């Protein structure tokens, strides 16, 4: 019996969360969260453990009901609908394959429940197993397969039902790095092939950046930023996002003047100019300059005069082959990383050594100012 909600929605959004809050007793797991997930998107919920990403996924799946707010799938409100009546399927981190059924029977499970005829369910399940490269293992029990194979079966078992939304809860979390890389590429290929909306939960920023069309970075039950991977990486909206995504060189500062020709006062140095968006004077913020975009020079050299700059002391210098990585400490113990490409040996020999007093300068264009949010990693 296919008790799925069949109602074409007006919007092209596959999943729409409206001001969703989920409380477990007094603990707020998800706090006033609103998200629009476009159809056919590979959408990732990224965040540290305990940020509410899995709870969000479980509310879409129907395992949890929101305390307040609405969940819409293809335009229809699924409030109160239990998991088995929702047009979603889940790939669990633990695989959750039925140990007493064969691989084929596992994949057929959902089809049988939706009343698909035996022949058809068998051929569809076989086809899906072929897609994940496991057709030859169809009569085995899950325990006879490797972890990677089990995860492929879990994927086939969910995908074979052609859900409107496929939910993936850290599906690669239990696999080793090499296998994970291979499956990332495969998952992305399969998603493009079937065109189903994937909502993917992970705490691995690299995985999120590799696979996603859109990333929602979450922290303590809230969304900090929703954007495509390039934007999240290049223009993180908050210091939390920047820190979580692995951006270094966060200089604590305070907004002096907002806008395009804005100005922030660095805690470790002078006021510097740059574009300040979405912030008001007085807000605490972080100024970010990428390691490869910093100029490092002797304070006396005069190079970089006229550019925004800050003084610091070299702590260490590390030769990386194609570049040299220099760690500089600003007043207030702010660590800064500078990456200098090794263009020629003469230039490399001229780089400041540990203990040298240096000036870090940058083009105002390359400075990015983000709102200060707690960095939890």
């Amino acid at each position, binding site marked *: 019996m296919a008790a*799925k909600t069949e109602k074409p929605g007006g919007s092209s959004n596959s999943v729409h969360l409206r001001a969703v809050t989920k409380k477990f007793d007094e603990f707020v797991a998800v706090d006033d969260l609103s998200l629009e997930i476009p159809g056919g998107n590979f959408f990732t919920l990224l965040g540290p453990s305990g940020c509410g990403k899995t709870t969000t996924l479980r509310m879409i799946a129907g*395992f949890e009901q929101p305390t307040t707010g609405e969940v819409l799938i293809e335009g229809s409100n699924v409030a109160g609908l239990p*998991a*088995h009546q929702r047009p979603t399927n*889940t790939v669990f981190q633990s695989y*959750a394959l*039925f140990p007493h059924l064969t691989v084929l029977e596992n994949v057929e499970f959902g089809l049988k429940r939706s009343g698909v005829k035996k022949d058809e369910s068998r051929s569809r399940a076989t086809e899906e197993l072929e897609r994940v490269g496991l057709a030859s293992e169809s009569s085995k029990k899950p325990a006879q397969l490797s972890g990677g194979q089990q995860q492929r079966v879990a994927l086939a078992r969910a995908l074979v039902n052609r859900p409107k939304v496929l939910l993936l809860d850290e599906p690669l979390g239990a696999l080793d790095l090499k296998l994970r890389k291979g499956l990332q590429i495969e998952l992305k290929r399969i998603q493009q092939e079937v065109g189903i909306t994937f909502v993917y939960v992970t705490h691995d920023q690299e995985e999120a950046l590799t696979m996603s069309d859109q990333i929602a970075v979450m922290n303590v039950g809230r969304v900090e930023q929703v954007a495509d991977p390039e934007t999240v990486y290049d223009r993180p909206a908050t210091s939390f996002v920047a820190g979580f995504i692995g951006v270094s060189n966060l200089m604590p500062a305070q907004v002096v003047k907002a806008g395009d020709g804005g100005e922030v006062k660095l805690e470790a140095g002078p006021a510097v100019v740059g574009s300040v968006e979405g912030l008001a004077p007085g807000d605490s913020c972080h100024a970010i300059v990428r390691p490869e975009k910093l100029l490092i020079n002797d304070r006396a050299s005069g190079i970089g005069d006229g550019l925004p700059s800050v003084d610091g002391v070299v702590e260490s210098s590390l030769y990386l082959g194609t570049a040299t990585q220099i760690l500089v400490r600003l007043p207030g113990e702010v660590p800064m990383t500078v990456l200098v490409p090794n263009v020629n040996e003469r230039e490399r020999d001229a780089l400041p050594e540990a203990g040298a007093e240096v000036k870090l300068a940058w083009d105002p264009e390359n400075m990015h100012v983000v709102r200060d949010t707690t960095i939890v990693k």
Partner: protein
Amino acid sequence: MSGGRRALPYLLLFPGLLWLVVFFVIPLVYMGELSLRTGSLTEGFFFNWQFSNYSDVLSDYSQQFLRSFIYAGVATLLALLIAYPLSYAISFRGGKYRNLLLFLVVAPFFTTYLIRTIAWQTILTDQSPLVEFLASIGLTSNGRILDTPASVIAGLTYNFLPFMILPLYTSIDTLDRRLIEAAKDLYASSKTAFLKVTLPLTAPGIVAGTLLTFIPASGDYVNAYFLGGRNQAMIGNVIQSNYLVTSNYPAAAALAFILMLIILLLVVIYIRFAGSEALMGDEASTT
């Protein structure tokens, strides 16, 4: 030394094997020999391959054999029907009281089996308020509970219930709850998820519990002795009276052997049909 290493498994097996030989194999052989003797207590029993002992007791006591297996079977079924929902509830809903609830299940064991059964005899005696109440609402035959099949079956069910609950609880409690979630995610209603996932995966507990209840229940004589009458005698009672009352040792030994063989046969058939997959965990049976 590799020689010492190779001997180690046998050394470890030795105490257990010795135990088995002294307390199982030797008595069994002795009993087999006894069952083929003939004679009387005063003249002595002589070994002369008296196979007719078997056919005699089988024809004399076939009714008690049948009764034993029916009583034990019904008691096992009742115990399963009581124990499964109870174990399920303790495991799923017990929360922090789970261990307390399990303790309550085991608590009656602190009193000896005999005393508990005699206590039931008192509870079910004709003058007891409970029986009078049941009689007043017409739930008894001739105002009696004692000396009916119902009282014996109830006694068996009560006494062996923990043997059903404990293996069932263990298998329900170790069931991965995410599998139930996965079933519901794959469009199974709560009922279907129970039938297709929970029940098959807790089958080992059901098989273990039913065996642990059925086997001792079919050989039991205490419940029939205290709670039943002449017409509720089970095979255990017959064996007991042959040994201790009429002193017909060969007949008692033959009865014990027949009981053992029938139970063995029933268990083998049961495991073949119901429990092979559950016990072995492989694809011995298809779904």
